[in-house]
């Protein structure tokens, strides 16, 4: 069955990534993914900006909250785990699924992320093509999974 562009579900994804190449490849893979959903991507390059975006502060005041958040672990200013901790402690925001997308496969980081309440932990590495990995991720989380409406 053919779906028209307008009937596609719209999913907003926030990507927080400090490496501009990774950011480019991730955003590109998400935007390229249009099976059944239309993904709208916002990108920030450090943890502080990510928090500003989610709390709709400063220049992000008018931006709607995302359905899904992709967080790198190693980021300047506020790292991904700290962003995760703040979000998951906030009763208003903790319903937004967070996926850690990182090149760190340290067992400590993985454990800490799940302890803080991440919804998934995906490593970019070992032969895994980043674009393909993000495409899989998008397929699973935006297409096959049901996501809650983001809090206002």
């Amino acid at each position, binding site marked *: 069955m053919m779906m028209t562009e307008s009937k596609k579900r719209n999913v907003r994804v926030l990507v927080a990534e400090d490496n501009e190449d990774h950011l480019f490849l991730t955003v590109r893979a998400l935007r390229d993914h249009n099976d059944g959903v239309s993904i709208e991507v916002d990108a920030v390059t450090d943890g502080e900006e990510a928090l500003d975006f989610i709390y709709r502060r400063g220049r992000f005041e008018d931006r709607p909250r995302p359905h899904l958040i992709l967080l790198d672990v*190693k980021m300047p200013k506020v790292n991904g785990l700290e962003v995760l901790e703040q979000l998951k402690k906030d009763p208003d925001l903790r319903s937004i699924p967070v996926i850690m997308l990182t*090149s*760190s496969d340290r067992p400590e980081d993985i454990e800490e992320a799940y302890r803080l309440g991440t919804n998934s932990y995906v490593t970019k590495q070992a*032969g895994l093509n*980043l*674009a393909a990995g993000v495409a899989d991720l998008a397929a699973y989380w935006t297409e096959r999974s049901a996501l809650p409406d983001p809090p206002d």
Partner: protein
Amino acid sequence: MQGLLEVLEWASLIVYVMLAILAASRWREQRSEAGGWLSATFGILAFVIVAGRFLPEAGTSTLALWLAKFEIAILVLFPFCLHRFVLSLRSPLWWFPQIAATATAAVVLWTLALPEVPSDDGPRSAAFGAFVVAVLVQWTLLSVLATVRLWSAGKGQPAVARSRMRTMAAGAAALNIALIIAATAGSAEDSGMNLLTNLLALASALLFYLGFAPPAAIRQYWRREPEKALRRTQLDLVAATSVSEVVDAVLSSVREVFGAKQSALIDHRGALLATQGLSAAEATGLVETAASGDEPSVMVVPMRHARLVVRSNQLMPFFGRDEVDLLGSLASFLDLALERAELADLQRAAHEELEAASAELEALVYGISHDLKSPIISLLGYVDLLRSDYSERLDDDGRHFLARMEASAEYMQDLLNDLLELSRIGRMQTEPAPVDLTELVQDVATEVTRRFPAARIELSALPVVLMNPVRARQLFTNLIENAGRHGGRDDITIRVSGERTPEEGAVLYLADDGKGIPDVYREKVFGIFERLEEGGVSRTGTGIGLAMCRKILEQIGGGIDIVDAGPGTTFELRFPPATLATSPNDQILESTA
């Protein structure tokens, strides 16, 4: 009755004479002031008693009179000497020394000035009665003072010293009471009083004797408390694993058991390890005092690994011989404990240093691998985009270059992952679990033969070992892949077999019929980044695999080597006995090939 009195008198006489001889001979050995006064004290008692026994009853002759007067004058000196003995051990109290000397001198002069000395049962003149009162006052004053001071000095003293001092104090008190009774009873015919006086005199003699030279059994009885405490300390010392624990155990014991007010422990380099009851600066002074030997109350207990300097009080050298002995026996324990603790401390420091270095290395490896992985991920991502978006615009050469770029990036990624893995082995301590190697190798074989379809893998039954399952898989994957990759033929046969020896654990052989590895390289291939073939991207691996295998086996106390057996390469893998699961799988090594 008379007979009993005789016996008592003789017994007292013998004990006092023995005491006097003992005190004199000890004083000759030690020449201490206290020893001198005590020797004089006991000498006086012995003299008075012997004189009273053998000199004629006071008669009317001038000689007899002077003898009697002399006897009394000597007797009057007894409490003075006892008092001086106590004074030599403890600092004088107020103006008592002057009073004591004056009173004694007055009474002695009065004695010598006596016109007559009535016999025991003769009538006493009023003047003589006054003299008797004066003697009693002088005697009692000094004696009580000495007794009280001796008794109170025992407070806070180690057990044996305290008991000895208090026993002597009791002796002095008994003698004083005997004298008072004898002097006031009047008639010597009152045999009840006479008996009491004699009993008290004998008791006093025995008490003095016990205090001054306690027999072994009594000593042991008094020593049981400090010895118990000492045994506790010895246990603490045996259990102590650091110098600070050793020091704590010893110094508190030195305070409690030996009543040491101050003590310091100095190590063999002269450095101060610890002090008790004084500051570090004062400790230096104490050590100097000890070295000069001027103060008998400061003792040094020399040991091989340290010196213990102890300041006890002034009584210790006189009364504390037992404690000094105990201190000596503690010292040998202390010595051993210190030696052990020093080693343990060194080891701990070295271990901590190693841990720190290891943690630093871990952080470094993670940092590097993260930072190096990022550009590879980017590179691979762009190669992918290039291929998907621009493939049509590239010719065969261009696509080939892309493929080579991709292979290189992937190879670099493998290298990084392997390096990371290698650095993790051993640092990540995981619980070992029973791993059925037969199952595991079969599994690995299936996986590997997908990449090397012509290869054949045969295996006989292998043991179950206790190790990290992930590492076990890495080990066999690396080895079997290694054979497939470097064997030099596609139809390579890899044979895995094992034998179990109860003492040595298990030995596994992994043999292939490939081209083999020349003797000279058999050790080298286990080095990191060592490859026998030209380095390149295609099939040669990262050169880390065998290093990883060796590290995995060494981590569990085993090893791996290449041995001479057959035409190809044979790896010998050794698993120590501790890794062998004692389970019903014991018979598993019976070949089923």
